């Protein structure tokens, strides 16, 4: 068992550090990382002691609650990251299931290295946090309890989010969807908790929202009195409970990856219907379908909020709402290329040219974006008095967002089972797109010119993804023959 654990740890290390490295080099990277981490942790502790030692400003009572929030979020993020870091391809489980091992042992081998790695990273946060709280006037015991409670509550939020997503999306079909759902759930829980906590801090009365625990936690830290032992115990129990729930939900997850029945069928007609086929294909693929549905739901939610807002405020928020919907509706497009292998997708193997395929992909992407965005946009724009300008604003935003997503997806495709890569790529693409949208908005160009710029970017993205894919395929680009006889006479 120990050797199996060592092997699984080595596999994990290979994933984290990059597979081509030799074992000795991987271990040396690990040793350097541990030394650096410890150094940073100790250095931060000393710096926290020196920095907060003399801090007695009017806002000093806010620092411990802020620290509790940061610790809880960091701990939750580490739990969520565990899902991203572990091997989700099922290959490790598959290899282990061929050995005389029970399911529990297999789960231990798969999860123990991941948990150890992330627990190690989590431990590095403890000394600086305790030092800072002590420097801010908390007794040592109270500071330790405060830090433990904050970290435990963060583990609870992250664990519950993961457990719920695993419980709701048990089938192996949802492997690619589970992680973003857990992430979104965790963000929602975190935002609600922090929101209520800040409210409770302002009122100095957490009684109404005590069930959320975090308001209790931060109001207690803000008081500066000794942190209560029962509250610490409660947080620890919650964390352990969430981890137990997570372990239970994981034991049955991902058992079957077989697809369900096809409900909407595709009947081929002409070449144009290949666009329909590709679109339908993506809507059957669980990850892309989940992305499109999420984008659609976000759009509809924004539309509902806009309807509920007072008309004056709704008018003020119109452009941010249109930009937000455009960003979300275009986001699934970045995922599309990752559905197929980076090298030699099936379309290449059946003899299709990169030009033909990327044209269809470009069109299918636009269709998916339209599916996600049009209902919400229609609901928002139609009641507007300045309808044409709103439509042009949206056209510029959606065109630019889709162009960015297409280029990002094709230039740097991320496979669907690479959860961490997906998160990083989504954040980067969204940030760059938001930046470009902001630049376009602040350029003071009129709405028609902005729409033209967006459409030009969209057309350019089509050319760019074709060049990228043609280079990847090594295609000699040649137009298809116009006559069937040409083929027979040549060959």
């Amino acid at each position, binding site marked *: 068992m120990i050797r199996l654990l060592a092997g699984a740890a080595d596999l994990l290390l290979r994933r984290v550090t990059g597979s081509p490295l030799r074992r000795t080099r991987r271990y040396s990277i690990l040793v350097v990382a541990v030394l650096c981490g410890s150094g940073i942790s100790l250095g931060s502790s000393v710096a926290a002691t020196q920095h907060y030692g003399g801090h007695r400003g009017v806002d000093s009572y806010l620092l411990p609650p802020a620290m509790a929030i940061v610790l809880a979020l960091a701990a939750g993020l580490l739990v969520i990251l565990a899902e991203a870091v572990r091997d989700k391809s099922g290959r490790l489980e598959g290899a282990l299931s061929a050995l005389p091992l029970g399911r529990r042992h297999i789960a231990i081998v798969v999860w123990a290295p991941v948990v150890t790695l992330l627990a190690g990273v989590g431990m590095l946060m403890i000394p600086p946090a305790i030092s800072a709280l002590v420097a801010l006037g908390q007794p040592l015991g109270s500071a330790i309890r405060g830090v433990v409670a904050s970290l435990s509550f963060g583990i609870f939020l992250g664990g519950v989010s993961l457990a719920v997503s695993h419980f709701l999306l048990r089938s192996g079909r949802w492997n690619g969807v589970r992680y973003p759902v857990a992430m979104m759930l965790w963000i929602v829980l975190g935002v609600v908790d922090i929101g209520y906590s800040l409210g409770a801090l302002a009122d100095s009365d957490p009684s109404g929202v005590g069930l959320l625990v975090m308001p209790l936690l931060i109001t207690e830290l803000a008081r500066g009195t000794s942190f209560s032992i029962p509250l610490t115990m409660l947080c620890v129990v919650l964390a352990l409970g969430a981890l137990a729930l997570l372990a239970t939900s994981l034991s049955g997850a991902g058992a079957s*990856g*077989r*697809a*369900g*029945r*096809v*409900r909407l*069928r*595709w*009947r*081929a007609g002409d*070449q144009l*219907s*290949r666009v329909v*086929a590709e679109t339908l*294909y993506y809507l*059957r*693929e669980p990850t892309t379908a989940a992305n499109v549905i999420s984008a659609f739901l976000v759009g509809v939610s924004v539309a509902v909020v806009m309807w509920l807002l007072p008309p004056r405020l709704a008018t003020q928020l119109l452009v941010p709402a249109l930009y937000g919907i455009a960003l979300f509706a275009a986001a699934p497009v970045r995922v599309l290329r990752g559905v197929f*292998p980076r090298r*030699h997708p*099936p*379309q*290449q*193997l*059946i*003899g*299709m*040219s990169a030009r*033909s395929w990327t044209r269809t992909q470009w069109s299918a992407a636009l269709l998916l974006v339209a599916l996600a965005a049009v209902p919400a946009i229609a609901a928002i724009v139609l009641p507007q008095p300045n309808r044409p300008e709103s439509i042009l604003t949206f056209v510029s935003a959606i065109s630019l967002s889709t162009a960015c997503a297409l280029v990002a997806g094709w230039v740097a495709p991320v496979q669907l089972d690479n959860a961490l890569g997906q998160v990083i790529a989504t954040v980067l693409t969204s940030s760059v797109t938001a930046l470009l949208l902001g630049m376009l908005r602040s350029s003071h160009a009129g709405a028609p010119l902005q729409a033209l710029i967006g459409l030009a970017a969209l057309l350019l993205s089509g050319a760019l993804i074709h060049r990228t894919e043609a280079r990847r*395929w*090594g*295609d*000699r680009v*040649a137009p*298809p*023959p*116009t*006559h*069937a006889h*040409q*083929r027979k006479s*040549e*060959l």
Partner: protein
Amino acid sequence: MLQIRDLHVRLGAFELGPVDVDVEHGAVLSLIGTNGSGKSTLIRSVLGLLPRSGGTATWHGHSVPERRPEVLSTIGYMTDSNKDLLAEFTAREFWNYCRLASERARGDRLPDALTHAERYASLIGLPIYDDRPLSALSLGNSRKAQLIGALIGDPDLLFLDESFIGLDFIAARAVEELLVTLRAEGRTIIASSHDLDLAGRVADQVLVLHDGRVALNSSVSDLGGSGKLEGAVRRSLDQARALR
């Protein structure tokens, strides 16, 4: 005729070549070799899916690795993995998609493609479900669907990489009969396989690879017929090992 001349491929530490082989139109070439000998590499490099470090591969005088649509439209390819499928499509949808891809490449319609596909499916025992995607099928059935997909474009030249993986013995016999039928129709077939009996029954010519080098390139009749194929292959592999 398929002509491969002085073909070299370098993939990391592995080197394939030189490979020189001629395959007559309407002949079946069986690619034989131990695991990792370079069979799939040879097929993929001929098809232009892997970069060559040298050499040519021509089909009736046209370079195959350049992947010109008009040349590709006469070629069918079945990979050695059932992952190389559009798994969210049903079998019929996948064939339809392959048909459209072929029609686009050749600039001509293939109105009977699906009828032929259904005939092939019945011949090799593939049940067609209109409500089940390929990802829901067993390995054997998804391989059958993949084989039919390679035949959709009515190819003159067919590359089959380990086409018998995952097939039960009845399906394997049916696929063997299909290969014989395809040969009788005048199609040229390059098929890699580990089954020497099968190669003896179907192939006109064998190309044995060992560690990236050609160990034997001969017609089956020159080797004394299918009954003597295994002995000849074993001897060629022993000689190749001794030379290395």
